[in-house]
């Protein structure tokens, strides 16, 4: 029992779990075990209440009204930017709210590729999510810009030697994920940042899978741009973040044009608004933005270091348990963030996920929006993925491991 106690550590997970109403839900008459937080995390009650509270008490458009409600909503929405800025050690002007990571990456692809010339090069990696491939790929075709992909090693890490070999005088952008949503690999973004900056190359970090689980400091990484989604960090869907260094955001052109992002408009011309509003055209998802600020408060109240420490133990436990299964193949390195992708020998991930679902266990099965990685690097057609968050427990992992027997039984293994 001692193991169990030391395992519990400082985080009072039982108490934390009560903050998340959905965790009390039954799934197929079984207690829900939610193992899909890398796709979308659950919202604590204070985040849900903040949305309700906004619409019941403060709802008004921002930056437009003189009335009291407009003043309140504007203040709340701006305050949320400040909270996010503090969360990642940035300044207020450097935080742009977007719809999600995907929109932030599209914004960057449009705005940055605009300045590139034919035969310029950009560097991505083989472990990118589709959202950090497709926008670059499609625009690069138009601009005749070349994309190079950093290889993934056998172990599932980025091959930094290969990265260095790809850099030349034509390289303009390096855009890499901080944590792989499939392999769980934590990439050495600080080191990559130094490699890129030595040659004056713009460095973009996709932090969608790191921000929810660890302390991320944009100044420490020295990222030029960094993007993430609210819905993977206890906030609702519909809100994401683009961080950019002020000097760069001032230089690049907006992606969306319209109201709110202007200072002065004549019929012939427009002067753009100050940062960050220059990049936030039109009425934004106000309640969701405010709720993101509340989610940040919530995460801070638990402490990112505590979350990271707890999840690390939990992930190691899951990894060890899965490793003990003789018919399980795990993808990615041992040292990893809070997720494990695997295959149960010869049983298709969809079938594994369906049978686990009947046991109340929600996992992801498929290519995880990283099709080239799954098909061309891992040589699989699909994988199963368990992704953990600080509201998950060791007991849930034990139940999951037991449920694997049920999967085997159905398939007569």
């Amino acid at each position, binding site marked *: 029992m001692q193991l169990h106690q030391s395992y519990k550590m400082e985080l009072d997970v039982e108490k934390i779990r009560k903050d998340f109403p959905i965790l009390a839900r039954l799934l197929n008459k079984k207690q829900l075990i939610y193992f899909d937080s890398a796709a979308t995390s659950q919202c604590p009650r204070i985040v849900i209440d903040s949305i309700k509270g906004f619409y019941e008490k403060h709802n008004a458009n921002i930056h437009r009204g003189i009335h009291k409600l407009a003043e309140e909503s504007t203040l709340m929405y701006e305050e949320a930017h400040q909270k996010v800025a503090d969360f990642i050690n940035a300044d207020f002007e450097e935080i742009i709210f977007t719809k999600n990571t995907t929109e932030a990456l599209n914004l960057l692809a449009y705005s940055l590729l605009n300045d590139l010339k034919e035969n310029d090069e950009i560097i991505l990696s083989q472990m990118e999510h589709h959202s950090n491939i497709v926008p670059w790929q499609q625009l690069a075709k138009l601009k005749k810009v070349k994309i190079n992909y950093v290889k993934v090693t056998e172990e599932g890490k980025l091959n930094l030697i290969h990265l260095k070999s790809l850099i030349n005088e034509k390289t303009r952008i390096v855009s890499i994920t901080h944590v792989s949503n499939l392999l769980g690999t934590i990439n050495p973004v600080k080191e990559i940042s130094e490699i890129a900056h030595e040659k004056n190359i713009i460095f973009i970090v996709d932090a969608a899978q790191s921000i929810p689980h660890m302390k991320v400091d944009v100044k420490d990484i020295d990222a030029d741009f960094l993007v993430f989604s609210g819905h993977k960090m206890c906030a609702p869907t519909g809100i994401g973040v683009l961080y950019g260094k002020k000097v760069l955001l001032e230089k690049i052109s907006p992606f969306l044009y319209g109201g709110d992002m202007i200072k002065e408009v004549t019929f012939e011309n427009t002067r753009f608004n100050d940062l960050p509003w220059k990049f936030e055209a039109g009425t934004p998802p106000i309640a969701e933005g405010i709720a993101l600020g509340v989610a940040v408060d919530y995460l801070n109240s638990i402490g990112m270091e505590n979350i990271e420490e707890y999840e690390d133990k939990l992930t190691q436990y899951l990894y060890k348990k899965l490793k003990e299964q003789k018919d399980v193949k795990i993808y990615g390195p041992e040292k990893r963030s809070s997720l494990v992708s695997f295959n149960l020998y010869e049983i298709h*991930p*969809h079938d594994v996920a369906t*049978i686990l679902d009947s046991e109340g266990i929600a996992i992801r099965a*498929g290519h995880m929006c990283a099709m080239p990685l799954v098909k061309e690097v891992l040589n699989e057609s699909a994988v199963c993925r368990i992704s953990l968050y600080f509201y998950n427990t060791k007991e849930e992992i034990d139940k999951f491991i037991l449920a694997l027997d049920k999967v085997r039984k*159905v398939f007569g293994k």
Partner: protein
Amino acid sequence: MTQNQIIDRDYAGEGIYRENIIDHYKSPRNFGILENSDAEYMEFNPLCGDEATMQIKIKDNLIKDIKFKGKGCAISMASCSILTEKIKGKSLNEVKKLEKEQVYEMLSIPISPQRVKCALLSWETLRRLIKIYENKNG
């Protein structure tokens, strides 16, 4: 669908893995490659990465032979096996009239919305395959 319906709906869950499905999955009928086929088509389900290739041989408007090869979950592969078994020897006209619902009937398991694409991979492949055949021989 209202929220309550979603919550109350009885999930098919593991109930879809009936003996018949597992049997077809483990020992698929008509699995393999057809020499000298009259048409061939490969269908791909980008959602889950499942794929199926079907080949047919047709004589006097009858499906003389059909074979499939593929990679996928138990539902999609069993569905290919069951469907090819059912249509072998049938006339082209009959097969063209085959509706989705009939495929569900053949499988005789409850198909949840997330598994529709798996269950119908065989049917989609067959439909396109017949179009290809008709274009070639029309």
